[in-house]
């Protein structure tokens, strides 16, 4: 068991852990991410893995550098900070996470802290249902590893309630308003797949044409008119 501390809050996690940060907007996300990753920046025994949709890891690194007024090039070069990448193939994305994570653990880093933002319909990234499958497979994948994984879900940006429900159901713990707690909605991967994932509303068969509200929920479906010529 590896204990994972935060920079400014009293909370403590026990790794391995895979938790969802449910936040509202970039400001809160940055505050929580810095609180989570901060202790690893000054501790040579710890490592950081950044991932997410295309360009996400680089953005997180730039944010860390700006926030701490540090140049983290050396940490990246020596692979104490590793920039990962998502993939439109969710299985490949899972390997993109687990392979470097195992490598960092084998090199003796403990804990390894991971941050990855959830994204919706981003070019080059997994489809939402595949992304949730990936999320459900993370915890079994890190079993026995001193890894703490924070996945960030922006309630201000993510369009479909299904994705936020997915966050609650695929992570054993959640952080809401800065407080970590066990997710009462959490389901093990196989049960999540068979009871939730394959029943996502947009995967149901279309026997009859039916209304599907905008993926961003930006207005009523019926009678909606788009800005076209």
């Amino acid at each position, binding site marked *: 068991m590896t204990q994972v501390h935060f920079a400014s809050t009293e909370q403590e996690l026990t790794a391995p852990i895979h938790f969802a940060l449910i936040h509202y907007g970039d400001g809160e996300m940055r505050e929580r991410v810095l609180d989570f990753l901060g202790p690893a920046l000054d501790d040579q025994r710890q490592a950081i893995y950044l991932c997410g949709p295309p360009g996400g890891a680089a953005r997180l690194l730039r944010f860390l550098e700006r926030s701490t007024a540090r140049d983290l090039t050396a940490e990246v070069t020596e692979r104490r900070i590793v920039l990962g990448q998502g993939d439109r193939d969710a299985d490949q994305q899972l390997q993109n996470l687990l392979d470097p994570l195992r490598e960092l653990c084998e090199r003796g880093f403990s804990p390894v802290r991971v941050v990855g933002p959830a994204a919706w319909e981003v070019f080059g990234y997994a489809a939402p249902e595949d992304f949730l499958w990936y999320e459900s497979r993370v915890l079994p994948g890190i079993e026995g590893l001193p890894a703490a994984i924070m996945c960030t879900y922006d309630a201000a940006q993510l369009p479909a309630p299904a994705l936020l429900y997915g966050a609650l159901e695929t992570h054993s713990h959640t952080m809401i308003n800065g407080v970590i707690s066990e997710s009462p909605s959490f389901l093990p991967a196989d049960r999540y797949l068979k009871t939730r994932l394959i029943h996502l509303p947009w995967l149901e*068969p279309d026997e009859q044409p039916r209304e599907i509200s905008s993926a961003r929920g930006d207005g009523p479906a019926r009678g909606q008119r788009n800005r076209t010529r």
Partner: protein
Amino acid sequence: MGMVVSRAAPELHRGGIAVLDADGNVTWTDEAWVGEDDESGLPRVAIGSNLLQAYRGYSDPRAQAIANAIDAVFEGKVTYFEIEHRLDRESQSSFVTSVAALRGDRAGAVLIHKVVGEPAPSHPYRPADVRGGDGAHASQGAPRLTPREREVLALMADGSDNRAIAAKLGIQYTTVRGHVRSVVEKLGARSRLEAVARAYQMGLAPT
């Protein structure tokens, strides 16, 4: 049956109409449409080109959504569809942000399905890197899967990742990836999970 497709980039004051024949070939198009395609990264629309095939050749979900919308019009499920653009002012390029398939006339449209996204300006649509699927939909009957593909599908439906499938079947990881890709294509799915969902719906996976 001919049909009318409209697209627009409101900020550019652009829009366009194309009339397609039953095979998806453009038989007429207005000037506003022709010539803006290189900017948006979408297939070029010109008289004689096959719009359906052109969009099918692009992997981005919005391009696929447009192709599906064209299919839906041909099948009589929707009357028309609309494509919304966003202008990237820096590059003066327009990018598709949503595709909506609608039933009814323009004044009383009912939204049937809408795909929304924000492709990065630096990532225009690319030709699909996975081709060869027959695009069969679940409603068109069970696809022809090889025995091995059925085994792979059953393990996918059980939640296994590709490495686990490779270990269980005693085959290479890269071979599994090929089987998964083939299964997804044959089921006419856009994603691994959509294929699994269809497998359950079609009774191809044990419950």
